Structure formats: C-alpha cells, structure tokens
C-alpha cells in the first residue's frame, strides 16, 4: 500500500517537475540571467575594488608628514569599510542600503543597480583582504628587484607584483564568484528579479514548492559548476606551457661562459 502511494507521489512529482519547466522556462531563464549578470559584474567590480584597496594599503609610509597623515586617514577609512561589510550579513546590507537611501536621501535606486552595487562592495571587502594577503605573500625580493631597476610603487605593483597576486588569488576569486551566484538569492528581499525571486513567483502560480525549487537547485548547480570549470581552465592558460623551447642560435659568434670555462680547462 505505502509503496504504491510513494510510487504515486514520485510520478506526480516528475509530472509537475516537467510541467513547471515547460510552462515557466522563460521565467527561470530570466531569473538565471539576472543572477549570472549580477554575480559576474559584482565579482569583477569587487575584484577591482579589492585590487585598488590592496595596493593602497601596501603603499609604504612616506617621510613627508602631510602624505603620511593622508595615507593613514585613507587606510583607516578602508579598514572600517572592510570590517563593516565583512562583519554584517549581505541580506541586512541590502535592506539598509536600499531602504536607507530611499528614506534618508530620497533616492529610489533601480533594484537591479542596487543589487549590483551591494554585491560589488560586499565582494570588494572580501577581495581587499584576499589581495592584501596575496601581496604580503609575494617574496620581498620581487619588490626589491623592481625598485632596484627604478620602478616606483605603482609600476612595481602593475608590472611585477599584481600579475603574480592575481594568478595566486584566482582560486579564491573563483570561490567568491560561486558564493556570489548563490548569495544573490538574498537580493529577493529588495525584489531583484533573480533566480530565487522568480522561483518564488512560480510557486505562487502553481501552489507547489518542491518542484520549482528543485529546478532552481539544478540551475544553480549548473551555473556554479560551469564557473568553476572555466576558472580552472583560465588558471591553466595563465600558467602557460610546461616546457620552453631553446632557440637554436649561432653559437660561433658568442663566447658563452660554458665555452670559456671549457677553454680555460683545456
């Protein structure tokens, strides 16, 4: 009896599962699109924010008093930013920023813009710490060699340190990206029409919860798995080929140290 009942429920579920997909796929697709868009832009902007803050926070203190004071103030502000956004849940930040700007400044933010904004500055706070750790972990010799050939702080960062940092923090960035894909779902509290919000709307229409959210679950998984694979491919590409080619040259022209040593040994 129970077995037959279970069997019936399963069949019902599958029927609904496909019906939801067939009837509502445009809504799912739009929701997934918004989720992906917000998390891509949010991750990229957050990454940029993190890099800029990381560079500022590693500027060596100047001897000039004025510059020193300015740098200290800027650093203090950045520390507050990082601590506040890392120390509070994004769902609460969304409410405070969206409704706060409405109440205090009378700005009616576009919901999509608000979503991108919140995800970006939230990611920026995390990335700032990741970048700072990445910069600190680069060997001191790299900085010294760059300074020794006449590079200033910005040049050292741009041409020597950050390329290495970016490579090293790529896995952490991918992690942030995956987190963003999942966590944009909290933006439904300010009615951003991302995947979770769309799925909720669908449940309102079909009066069933399990099947629509099962579909959403699968879509989230497809997105996160794709992103993970893509980033791994990017890492490989940045690393370049495992072997290098020796360029055969005209060795007769060149007195190579090996040759000199051989000559001296004879």
């Amino acid at each position, binding site marked *: 009896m129970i077995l037959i009942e279970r069997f019936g429920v399963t069949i019902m579920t599958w029927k609904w599962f496909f019906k939801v997909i067939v009837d509502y796929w445009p809504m799912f697709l739009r929701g997934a699109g918004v989720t992906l868009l917000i998390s891509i832009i949010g991750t990229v902007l957050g990454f940029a924010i993190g890099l800029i803050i990381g560079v500022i926070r590693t500027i060596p203190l100047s001897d000039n008093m004025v510059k020193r004071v300015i740098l200290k103030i800027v650093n203090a502000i950045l520390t507050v930013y990082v601590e506040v956004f890392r120390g509070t849940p994004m769902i609460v930040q969304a409410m405070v920023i969206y409704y706060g700007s409405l109440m205090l400044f009378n700005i009616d933010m576009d919901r999509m813009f608000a979503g991108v904004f919140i995800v970006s500055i939230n990611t920026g706070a995390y990335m700032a710490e990741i970048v700072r750790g990445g910069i600190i972990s680069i060997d001191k*010799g790299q900085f010294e*060699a760059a*300074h020794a*050939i*006449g590079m200033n702080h910005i040049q050292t960062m741009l*041409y020597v340190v950050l390329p290495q940092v970016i490579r090293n923090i790529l896995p952490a960035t991918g992690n942030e990206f995956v987190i963003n894909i999942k966590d944009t779902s909290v933006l439904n509290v300010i009615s951003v029409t991302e995947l979770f919000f769309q799925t909720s709307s669908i449940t309102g229409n079909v009066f069933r919860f399990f099947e629509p959210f099962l579909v959403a679950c699968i879509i989230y998984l497809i997105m996160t798995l794709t992103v993970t694979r893509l980033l791994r491919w990017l890492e490989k590409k940045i690393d370049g080929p495992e072997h*290098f080619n020796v360029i055969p040259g005209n060795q007769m022209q060149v007195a190579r*140290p090996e040759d000199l040593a051989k000559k001296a040994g004879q």
Partner: protein
Amino acid sequence: MDNIIEVRHLSKWFGSNEILKDINFNVKKGEVVCIIGASGSGKSTLLRCINLLEKPSGGEIFYRGKNILSDKHDLQEYRTKMGMVFQQFNLFNNHNVLGNCTVGQIKVLGRKKEEAVETAMKYLKVVGMDQYINAKPSQLSGGQKQRVAIARALSMEPDVMLFDEPTSALDPEMVGEVLNVMKDLAKSGLTMLVVTHEMGFAAEVADRVVFMDKGVIAEEGTAREIFNNPKQERTREFLKRIIGN
C-alpha cells in the same frame, strides 16, 4: 680619474644597533671594487644603502658629484644608473627571460619594444642565455637564473653594477659560469662593486679590495696589498680563516 660614487661618513642604524659606522670610500669610473668581510659585517647593508634600498641614517652619498640623499634627488632615475644583482636572483616570476630583461627598459626608461628587445638580446648573449628567452624563471637552474639577472641589470645600461654575493646561493658546479661572466664584464671596463666570498675572483679582477669588519672599513688597498701583505691583524685573521677552509 672621476669618482662615480663617493660615500662620506655613512652610518646606518637598525633600531639600536649601529650596523655601519662612518664609512668613507669612493668608486672611480671603470673600477672593479670587491668588498670582503665576515658574515654580519655590514657588506650587504652598505651595498643596499648605495642604491637606497636601505635608507642611510647619516652621512652623504654622492653620485657624479650630486648628493643623492637630498630631497630634490630623483630616486627612480638614480636607481636605473645602479644595476643590482642579488644573492637570491629575484627574477620577476611573472615574466619569462626576455620579459625580465625588457620590462624595466620599456616601463622605466620608456624605450620602444623593439629597441628593448634588441638591447636585451645583446646582453643575454653576453651572459650566454640568449637561447632561453622563452623560459620562465622556475624552469632555469640557479646559475642560469643569476646570468639572466645580470643581463636584466645590464639591459638598463647602468653606470655602475652592484653585486651582492652573486654566487653564494649557487651549487658549487654553477659558481664558475657566473664568475666567468663577471670576469668578462670586469675586463670590458664596466664599473663594478662586488660583495663576494670568492677570494680567487677578487684577486684576479679587483682593482681595489675593501675589507669590512663590524660595520667599519678596516682596510682597503689593491688586491695584491690586501691578499699578500695585509697591514691589519683582523684582515690577516679573516683571510687565514677563509683560505684555511
């Protein structure tokens, strides 16, 4: 002859330790000066003060008659005139061999890419690494890395080359290839300031040898004077210890 570098009453403190005390010495154009001395005597610190990787605590350093410690001095430009070779090579890990030798020329000196590549190839040939331009630093042996590091410094076409124990981190069988490159450079008339434990090298190429002990220049003279006829008791002791091994 003109002094390229003049060091006057240079002192350096790390916290409450005086690491360099009243250092005075000159480097003339085309001269090869070797700095020898026991570990911890301040040789590296002196070299690093000269290109301002360390900030001197007192005294003056003149480069072609100009005080480089004055506020008006352009630090970045001055450093392009001082080529530095480190004990640990410090090749840029994000660049291949060619990139290591061109990035400074392009970004700091503002040279065109083609010119930078041409210059880099010229010096990579000098050190015998022109066949390895596509290699990443992690794919090279220590001796190869150090030769690339020398080419990188030479590519900036500096006035003076500073070497801080360039062979100390190398396996014994690779020391020779680097020293041979440096001997060629010394004979080509390049101005060199070399911190080294390789007494044979110093004896062969140094115009002048400076012996440092506990943060002061204890003795200086020609290679022959220092190695064959040291005046100071502590120089004699140091040489006995080194050559005794």
